[in-house]
Each structure stands twice: as C-alpha cells, then as structure tokens.
C-alpha cells in the first residue's frame, strides 16, 4: 500500500453568488485503499466540497481558492478539458439516489458503457462485456438480461447497486459516494456498505459523504467532521467514536441512530444549522453549543492540532486536556 495521498485537498473555498461561502478552507487527505468519511448535517458543505473537486458545481457556484492534488495534478487548476479525462475514469461518483442520478430514458447498457467509450477504454462490444461483469460484481442476478432494462424497472436496492456498477465499470482509483445509503432501506443499506467496503479492500480509495456517523463507522478509516462549510474535527474513525472532542461531534454522536450495533435514543442537537448567508461570528456552532462561553466563542477559531492525526476547531479542547 502506498502511503502517499491519492487525493489531497488544501484550503478549498467555494462561494455561491457574490457572498455566500459554502466551503471555507477545507483540507483533507485520502489514501489508496483507505476510506474517508466526510460527516455533517445537510448544508454543512460536504457535498459542495466533493462537487468542487469533481468540477460539477452548479453554475452559480465558484471555486475561489485552494488546491486538490490528484496524481500530481491540481484538479482545480488543470481546466475542464483535462479534468474531464479524470472524471468518471480515475475518480468516479456514486449519488444519493439512483432514481435521480440515472437517466430514466436510457437503458442500463447505454449508461454503463457510454463513459467507457468516451474515455476510449475499449470498443462497444468489450464495453458491454465489462458492464455485464460490473453488474454481476455488485450482485445483480442475471446481468445479461438486466442490462437491457431501464432504471425504473429495477427495485430500489438493485438500482442503487447498478449505479455503483456504473461508477466502478471504469475501475477508478477513487470513488466518491455522496450519501449512498440515505435513500434506501436498512437491508439494502447494509448491502451497499458491504459493496463499498469490498472496493476499499481491493485498493480503491473511497470518500464517503454522510450525515450519519453510524453509517460512516461501518468501514471508514478516517473521519472529517464539517459544520457550516468548515472542518471542525479530523480524526481516525476509532478515536473519533471513542473520544469525540469537538462539541458538535459529541452532539452528532448523540443524535446518531445506530451506535455500537444497537439503536440509541435520539438526542438531536437543538436548533438548526446556520443560514450560510448569516453565518454566526466566530465559531459558527456556538449558538447551538451546550458548552459555549461568550464572548470567547465569538472570536475566530483556528483548527488546532490536538494529537497525532487529530485536529479540532474548538478552544475548549486545549482547556480539557
């Protein structure tokens, strides 16, 4: 295994419109054969972060700073033409809902083979063979027949697996999964997670975007917790679960449904994430934080190194230690 980072994001900054900063100085690394969880509530900027890296932001969004190194190239600087050669071939993406992310009017065959041909990886006949094999790999029975169907003709779980097959058919080095288990029921959730874990074990780097730490802990090695567009805590998964430091992470763990294999009572964090156009001054979490102390929490908070591989953006962690 290569210790060098597969993808290395530094100080990424993405704004919407003229003033709304959705991602504000985010940094993280992911290595080959390793899985990183990016955790946060909706609106925390985790999806925007990964869409920035992939260059698939909506038109109103602009990347205003930072780098994203992948195989020695800065994805944010190489331009759309070069980025296109990497997208779908070296970095693939799995979306929240296959119902929405797969074109309802094209057959699976068309959708599983078109990017093999775009990237010039093989001819049409070979592409079909690879697509059938990919469908088989994700556990879809009778793939020869299924490949001729439309996405809506599959069950929800199968559709989700077909989308993973679509991402994996080009054998990418890095897979970004954006809430891949949110739209499916619990049994399917398990199957999807097993699939992703299998990919990781075979050496693919995985970035898993999720709001659910219970899902993230299943196979992720490291975690980055985001709040209001910033990283608030970064740690190996095991340490994060054992000993969460940032009050927000503590809250997230408390509100996570499945911890330690059994359901816990839901204790949601009071309040809701801030409207990014009216970001609280200082630590963005302080209006919801049970441990907030004013006015100290209203001053800008740098991310602090609190141990090997561990950082947190809260001054309290140094006091605690």
């Amino acid at each position, binding site marked *: 295994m290569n210790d060098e980072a597969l993808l290395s994001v530094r100080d990424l900054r993405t704004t919407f419109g003229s003033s709304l900063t959705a991602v504000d100085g985010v940094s993280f690394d992911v290595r080959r054969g390793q899985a990183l969880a990016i955790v946060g509530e909706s609106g925390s900027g985790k999806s925007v972060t990964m869409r920035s890296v992939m260059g698939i932001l909506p038109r109103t969004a602009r990347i205003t700073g930072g780098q994203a190194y992948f195989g020695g190239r800065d994805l944010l600087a190489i331009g759309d033409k070069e980025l296109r050669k*990497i997208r779908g071939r070296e970095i693939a*993406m799995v979306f929240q809902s296959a119902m929405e992310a797969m*074109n309802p009017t*094209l057959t699976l065959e068309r959708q599983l083979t078109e990017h093999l041909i775009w990237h010039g990886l093989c001819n049409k006949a070979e592409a079909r063979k690879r697509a059938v094999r990919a469908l088989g790999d994700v556990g879809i029975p009778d793939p020869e027949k299924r490949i001729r169907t439309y996405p*809506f003709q599959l069950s929800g779980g199968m559709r989700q697996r077909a989308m993973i097959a679509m991402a994996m058919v080009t054998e990418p080095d890095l897979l970004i999964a954006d809430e891949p288990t949110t739209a499916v029921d619990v049994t399917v959730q398990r199957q999807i997670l097993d699939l992703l874990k299998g990919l990781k074990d075979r050496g693919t780097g995985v970035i898993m975007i999720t709001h659910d730490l219970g899902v993230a802990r299943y196979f992720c090695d490291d975690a980055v917790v985001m709040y209001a567009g910033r990283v608030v805590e970064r740690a190996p998964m095991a340490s994060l679960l054992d000993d969460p430091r940032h009050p927000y992470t503590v809250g997230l763990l408390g509100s996570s449904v499945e911890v330690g294999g059994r359901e816990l009572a839901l204790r949601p964090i009071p309040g809701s994430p801030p409207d990014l156009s009216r970001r609280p001054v200082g630590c963005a979490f302080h209006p919801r934080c049970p441990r907030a102390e004013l006015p100290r929490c209203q001053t800008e908070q740098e991310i602090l190194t609190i141990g090997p591989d561990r950082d947190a953006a809260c001054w309290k962690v140094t006091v605690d230690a």
Partner: protein
Amino acid sequence: MGLAVYIGKRLVRLVLSLIAVSILTFTLLQLAPGNFADLQRVNSGATNFGGVGTESMVGELETRYGADVPVWKQYLIFMKGAVVWDFGPSYKYASRNVQDIIAEAFPVSATLALLAVLLALLIAVPVGVFAALRQNSKTDHGTMFVVTLGHALPSYLSAAFMILLFSATLKLLPSGGWNGPKDLILPVLALSLGPAAVLARYVRSSMLETLREEYVTAAIAKGGPRRTVIVRHALRNSLIPLVTVAGPLLAALMTGTVFVEALLRIPGLGLYFANAAASRDMPLLMGTALFFALILMVTNLAVDLIYRFLDPRIRTVGGVSDDGH
C-alpha cells in the same frame, strides 16, 4: 388501465363531443335570419344556382332543406349523411358536394400546417437550447424578446409584413395565389412563427429544468463531453414532453390556416369555410365546422397515444416501482 380501454373511452368522448358540436352549430345557424330554404332562394339568384346541369343537386337540396322539411328532420338527414361521409351539395358551389370540396381543399391546409409545424420545430429547438445554455445572459434575454414578438403577432400580420418585404420590396416571391411550390414559402413561414415562439419557450424552460436534473450532473461526473451530455442526456429528455405541445399546435394549425389563406388567396379549407360563412352556405359551413372539430379531436388523441409510446416510463405500464421506503 389497458390501452384498448383507454382508447375506447377517448373515442366515446370524441363522438359525444362531435354530436354536441353539430347540435350547437346547427341550432345557432337556425337562429340566423331566414331559414335554409329562404336563403337558398336568395342565393340561387346570386350564384346562378341550378344553372348548369345541376337539377339533381337542386332536387337534393329541396329534400334536405326544403321549406316543408321540419328542422329536426333536416338535422337528422344531415347527420345521417355525415356518418357515411355525404354532406350533400353546397349552396354556393351548387354543382359540388360538400365532401368533395373538403377532400380537395383540406390537403392544401394540412400541407401548410404540417410544414409550418416542422419548420417551427426546426427553428424552436436550437433557439430554445441556445437560450437555455446561456440562461439570463444578454443573448438569452434578446432571443426571448424576439420570441415574444413572434408570439404576439397573429400569422396573417406576419404574412402581411412578409409580402411587403419579399414581394413588394425584394420582388423575390409571389404575394399570394396557389400555382407552384414557391407559393408555399410565405404562408408556411408566416404560420410557423407563432408556433415556433411557443415551442422555443417550451424547449428553453424544459431544457433548463432537465439541466438541473441529477442525472445530467451524473453524466458530467462520468466524464461526458459537454455536447454529448447536452444532446444525449438533457436534450433527449427535454424533447419528449415537447410532443404534448407540438401536437395541439399542429391540431390548431390544421384548422387555423384560414387567415393566412384568406390574405394570400390560397384555396385551402379555411378559405372555403370563411367564404361559406360570408355567403351563408349552410351545408358547407356545417360540414367544414364538423370536419374541423373532428380533425382537432383526432389529432389530440393521436398526440396522447404517441406520447405514451415515446416515454418508456409511461410505455411500460406498471413498470415503475419505488420500493425501499
């Protein structure tokens, strides 16, 4: 619901609507000053009625609309004939049967309508896509402004401007008549502008909607070249619902060529209809009105059926399953 049942229901509704239209028209025309028989006598002088070897026609008009035939019977005779495609003779063109006039004149109107809708699509799709891809830019606003102009002006007014430009000023095209393929250009162009405007707006908004779909983002995330993604994933899916708009437009045009026909002196069915109204040719008026209603309803039904076949989600009845929740 089975397709056959669906079509059956629609056909029943179609027949009922036709009957309603016929009763409505017939009743209204009865209210017109003078009855059919009187009009016939008035007209016979003016139009040389019964002049040249049409004695059998005159006889038939007497049996159909004679003063001694009660109104309800006139209606029944007319409808009985209509079912077997026999509307009887016209007043104005007394030597000809209404159905023959329809058979001769409708293809002219239908040709104009079909060509106009095709041209409208050819204009509207690129314009709509172009505007959508540059949403809220000056090009977008400019294009849509021009589209509004096309939408606001009735076809005959566009035709008037076109003959001023192409016939009077540039002397390139004939200013009307129906003698050769050149005579098709102006009416088709004039008729296509309004539909083109409607369709372009529709393509634009449909395209904007589709471009926001996650599967378009997903296709880009797979490394799709911009043009391929736009054509295969976005455009294709935006155009399917276009049938629902283009179809009714075609139906409306089939019966709406009349003004352009009148202005450019094209012997289409619309022109005959208008002349029938002006000269109170009741059989021709009834016949064409009923025929127009039929065309309109059949086209609309056909559009619905085509739409069902174009969209696989609707085509595969019961194929949609959204389990897992």
